């Protein structure tokens, strides 16, 4: 029984961790390519979920088409945002760029509020509601899909960066923007592409988070936990972001079960932050991040 509980908690934790990992992945992609830290990533996640929802309920599209339509629309929106709002700030101090994305986060959140209001909606998820029972452990099908989809995404990204032409130019741009530019890589294109890809991953995360629960504007606040996940893994490491997300997903669910009696009921909501604080004390550049050599 006790081990069943542990497995059950871990699987749910992994599902949530996958969602955090997807959001964190978006953060890393943008950061690696453009050195910009996009605080609006949780909001992009929320927007993706809401758009999918709107396509399903208003246009009565089947889930998969609605999802694809949302992906396309999100790609367009983020490409525009990147070109109009973020690009003028490339090269500005880190602080102001971060602040712009914070402002962007507010704008997206406000627009979502204006359009859809502050009510909760049931998300018409395509996954069967009844759990599967495997070896006496009941597992939500949405959770399985979340985990599987994240794994597929990760493998896809790995291959994309390793072998595809655009993946390689993105890596090159991340390594040294000006050199990449001189090598004839379309740096602007890479910048836009990184934002677009990040928004697509965010949409996936949003759809899964909404499927696991429901749709409401507080989603973005939950999505903020991808930040500690990211920092935990190390800012510049893709696999670090994924692992960080998973670690935090599992850790918070376990903490919610085992520690809530001792440390207060909200402990699962702050587990991520406690973890990141501890890790920062030991390794100031995250578990997998690289330590920079500074020069003068």
């Amino acid at each position, binding site marked *: *029984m006790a081990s069943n*509980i542990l497995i*059950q*908690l871990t699987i*749910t*934790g992994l599902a*949530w961790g996958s969602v955090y990992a997807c959001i964190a992945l978006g953060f890393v992609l943008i950061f690696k390519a453009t050195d910009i830290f996009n605080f609006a990533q949780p909001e992009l996640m929320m927007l993706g979920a809401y758009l999918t929802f709107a396509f399903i309920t208003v246009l009565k599209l089947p889930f998969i088409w609605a999802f694809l339509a949302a992906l396309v629309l999100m790609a367009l929106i983020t490409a525009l945002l990147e070109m109009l709002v973020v690009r003028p700030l490339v090269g500005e101090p880190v602080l102001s760029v971060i602040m712009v994305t914070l402002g962007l986060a507010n704008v997206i959140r406000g627009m979502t*509020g204006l359009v859809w*209001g*502050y*009510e*909760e909606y*049931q998300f018409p998820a395509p996954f069967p*509601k*009844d*759990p599967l*029972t495997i070896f006496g452990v*009941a*597992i*939500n099908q949405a959770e399985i899909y979340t985990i599987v989809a994240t794994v597929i995404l990760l493998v896809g990204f790995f291959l994309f960066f390793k072998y595809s032409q655009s993946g390689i130019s993105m890596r090159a741009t991340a390594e040294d923007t000006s050199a990449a530019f001189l090598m004839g890589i379309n740096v602007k294109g890479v910048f836009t592409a990184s934002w677009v890809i990040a928004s697509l991953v965010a949409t996936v995360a949003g759809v899964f*988070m909404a499927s*696991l*629960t*429901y749709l*409401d504007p*507080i*989603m973005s*606040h*939950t999505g903020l936990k991808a930040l500690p996940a990211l920092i935990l893994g190390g800012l510049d490491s893709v696999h670090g972001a994924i692992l960080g997300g998973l670690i935090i997903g599992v850790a*918070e*669910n*376990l*903490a*919610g*079960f085992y520690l*809530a009696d001792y440390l*207060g*009921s*909200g402990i*699962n*909501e702050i587990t991520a932050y406690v973890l990141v604080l501890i890790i920062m004390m030991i390794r100031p550049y995250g578990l997998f991040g690289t330590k920079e050599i500074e020069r003068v």
Partner: protein
Amino acid sequence: MKKLRTLVGIVMICFVFGALGAGIARAEVGVTKDTILLGTFQDLSGPAAYLGKLATGVLQVWMKDVNDKGGIHGRKLKLVVEDNKYDPVLTKTAFTKLVDQHKVFMIVSVYGSTPCTAIMPDIQAKKIPVYTTAAAVQTMFDPPQRYLFWYACNGQDQGILMADYVFKDLKARDPKIGLCYQDDEWGKDALDGMEMAAKKYGFKVVEAPYKRGTKNLNAQAMKLKAEGVTHCLFVGYAPVYAALLMEANKIGWKPVFFGDYVSVDPKTFMAGDLANGHYHIGNLGLRHEGGPGWKKIEKGFTEAGLESMLNEPLIPVLWNPLLLLTKAMKDCGKNLTRERLINAIEKTKNFDTGGLGKIEFGPNMRKGAHYCRILRADASKKIFVPVTGWRQPSLVWGKR
């Protein structure tokens, strides 16, 4: 030297204006020959904005109804709404603005434990009637404060009522009773009630609190399941209740659920069939019962073009007190003052709401709701059906 003279001049002009402003005295603040100015702060843009929309709608319909019938002794009602975004500081700002700038007669229909708590000291200091609050905090009416009227369903009452029902009506044998609650005053009140009942009936409460805004209730559900809970009371918002139901289904845990009065809400049915057959505790008349009170609400809302709000079962929480207020204001006659109004509210006994639920205040009683019913959710029709009559908890609520 010239500058100094200008300065003195400016200061003196300011004094004169200030004195003029102070000099325009009225018989009672907010009441003129033909108007009564009411104020309210509502969450128009925060996390509880759906309530803000509802409350403003209810107030609109009520004022139109009163004014169309000639107002209160010829005085028309006027309303100032301030947005507080459910934020304590902005609530305080809104309160100060209503009282000191708009100079309202009283404050009506406010809710939310965080915002209402933030202005408690001011209500006492400024002696402004606040009628009524629907904040789920015991301190709102216990100890009673002269200027603060409260009308909602008390957490303690619900905790006790649930245990009463489990032991007396369901006659459950050796039940394990659990409580999943939002870990604020609202939930803790319910926990208090349950613990009082636990002493009486001899059981142990299994607690599973969660933080407001939490989306993943897996740990809570697992904990309740691991403890073998058979009857579980949920205190929190309806969507979270639906999430808990789904989580319970996921882990194959099938207790009898009780929802509190806030989850007597169509959003509970976000969980679909999973919500079917579970119990709720409610203190309000329900629309599908078709009582005269609800008929009137339906008419008013339809005329105002707000039909979409009618499926909110919580409307009477805001509506009932306003009916009583109309009567109390009329009882005051032409000489409407804050103190006389409060006395009039206290004196109104056996007030008829048309089947919407009881409301009654007394000289030392600021808790307007005393009776509840146990309801049962019917997922096919998305309604809640009463399974008991109006009842009071078997234990008397008290101070923590």
